[in-house]
C-alpha cells in the first residue's frame, strides 16, 4: 500500500468504520437532520437530544464510505455530553481543518482535535472532503432545525 493510502485510511478511521460508535436510533431526539451527498449517494442521519443547551445524546445512522461513516462515528464520541456552544465551536474548527486552502491555517487547531485529526488525509483528495464533512454539515443542520443537509 502506498504512503498516500495509509495517510487517508489511518488506523483510527478503519477502527471506527469497523466498530462504529454512537450508531443507531434515538427515539426521544429533539433535533434531527438527514444529509445527502448527491454525487455519490452517501446518506447520514444525525439525531440529538438537547437538554438545557447540552447534547445529552447523539446518534448517527446511514450508509456511506469509510471516510463518511468513521467521521460520523468519531463525531458522536466528540459531541456526546458537550454543550451545544462547544459543539458549534468544534464544527467551525473542523471546517477550517478540512477546507482551509492555507495549510498552516488548517493545521492551527490540530492538537485540539484528538482522534478527529485522522480525517486530515482527505485534504490531499479534494473529492473526498465532502465525505468527511457530510456528518458535520448534517449535525449543523440538525442543531439549526433544518431537515436536510447536503455537501454539494
Amino acid at each position, binding site marked *: 500500500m502506498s504512503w498516500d493510502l495509509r495517510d487517508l*485510511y489511518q488506523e483510527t478511521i478503519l477502527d471506527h468504520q469497523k466498530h462504529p460508535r454512537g450508531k443507531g436510533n434515538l427515539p426521544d431526539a429533539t433535533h434531527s437532520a438527514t444529509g445527502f451527498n448527491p454525487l455519490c*449517494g*452517501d446518506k447520514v442521519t444525525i439525531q440529538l437530544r438537547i437538554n438545557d443547551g447540552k447534547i445529552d445524546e447523539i446518534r448517527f445512522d446511514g450508509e456511506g464510505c469509510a471516510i463518511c461513516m468513521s467521521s460520523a462515528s468519531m463525531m458522536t464520541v466528540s459531541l456526546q455530553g458537550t454543550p451545544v456552544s462547544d459543539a458549534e465551536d468544534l464544527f467551525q474548527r473542523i471546517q477550517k481543518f478540512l477546507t482551509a486552502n492555507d495549510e498552516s491555517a488548517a493545521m492551527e487547531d490540530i492538537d485540539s482535535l484528538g482522534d478527529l485529526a485522522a480525517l486530515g488525509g482527505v485534504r490531499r483528495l479534494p473529492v473526498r472532503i465532502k465525505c468527511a464533512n457530510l456528518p458535520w454539515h448534517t449535525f449543523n443542520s440538525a442543531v439549526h432545525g433544518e431537515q436536510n443537509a447536503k455537501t454539494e
Partner: protein
Amino acid sequence: MIQELPKISISLFPKSDFPNLLTLVNGQPLAYLDSAASAQKPHVATEATSMFVEHQYANVHRGVHTLSQLATDAYERVRDQVKVVLNAADRNEIIFTKGCTESVNLVAQSFARPMLRPGDEILLTELEHHSNIVPWQLVAQATGAKVVAARIHDNGELDLEDFKSKLNANTKIVAFTHISNALGTILPAKELTAMAHAVGATVLIDGAQSGPHAAIDVQDIGADFYVLSIHKMYGPTGVGVLFGKLNLLEAMPPYQGGGSMIRSVSFEETTFAELPAKFEAGTPNIAGVVGLGATLDYIAGKNWNRETWVNRISEIGDYEATVREYGVSLLAEIDGLTVHGDAEEMAGIISFTVKNAHPHDLGTILDQHGVAVRAGHHCCQPLMHRLGVPATARASIAAYNDLEDMDRLAAAVQSAKELFG
C-alpha cells in the same frame, strides 16, 4: 479455466494511439477503465481536427466563399458517415446535437410534448440513465401523462413479461437503453421495438453505450428514434446524434429557434428550413462534428463502408467481451466480491461491490494503483435502489484495454480488500 483464455498482450486499439493512456497516474501506468463515462481520444483524430480548424475552418451553411464551402462539405460528409454507422435510410434522418442528453430532450419536447394527453403512458425500464428518465418526467408533468418503468430480473436482464404487461393502448412512448451503462446488459432492441409498435407506441432507443461497442441497424431494429453520445465513441465532447424517422422529424415542430433553421423570417411569420437544418439551430459544433468523422475513420480505417464498419465494430464488441470474461474470472476469485449483472448478453462493463469496502473507498484505492474506475450510482439511482446497493464500482472496457488492465484491476481490488478486511 482462466488459463484456457488466450492472453491478449496487445489491445485491439494500441494504447500508444491514445496519448492520455500513456500518462502516469499517482506514479503508476494508467489502467483506464472508465470509458463508459467517456472514452479517450485517438491522436490522429484530434490532430485531424486541429488541421481542419487551422486550415479549413469557417462557419457552415452560411457563405459562398471557399472556406465556408470547405467547412460545410467536411461537416456534411460526417452526416453521411453517421448515416452508414446507423444504417439510416436517409441522410436527413441524422441530426447533430450537443449530446445524447440533448437528443432525448429534443424528442421529449418536440415529439412527445405536443402529442401526449392526460392518462397517456411513457414506458421506460429500471435500467435507464437519468438522461432517459428526467426528460420524460418533465413532459409527463407538463402534459398529465404518466411514467411507468418495466422491471428487471436480479441478473440485470429486462423482465420481458413485465415489459409486455405494461404495454397497453395508453402507451404512447417507449424509451429504453440498448446497453445498460451501469451493468452492461444488452437489451433485445428489435424485439422490444416490435412489442411497442404492436400497441402503437413510438420508440426511442438510448444508444449512448451501444454506439462504441455494437453494430446498429436502425432499420432492422425498427427504431423511431435512436440517440448517440459521441464522446463515448472516442470522439469529441459536445456532439450528439439524433436519428429520427423522416416522417416523424418532418411532422415535429423545431426544438430551438435561431439561425440556420429558418427558410424566411419576418416579425409576422417565420417558415422553417427543411431537415436536417430545422433541428440544428445556431452555429453547430463544427470542429466537433469534423472530429467525429476523423474518429470514425480511425475506428474503421480509411474508406470504410457499411460492411467494413459492421465487421470492425463487431470485432470490437467481441474483443471487449473476451477481456470482460477474463476480468470477471479474476474478480470471481476474490472473497466477498459480487459482480452485478449476469445477463445472457453482456457488454464490456463489470459492475461490482465488495463486502465491507464501500465503492468510493474502492475508487480511491484503485486510483492510487493507477486503476481508474467509476464509483457511484452511475446516474442510475432507480437501478441502484432496485439492486439494493447505494452504489457500485464499475470497470468499463474499451478497445484499448487489455488483459493486463484486468490483472491490475483484480490486484488493486485485492489490496483494498486487505485494508478493509
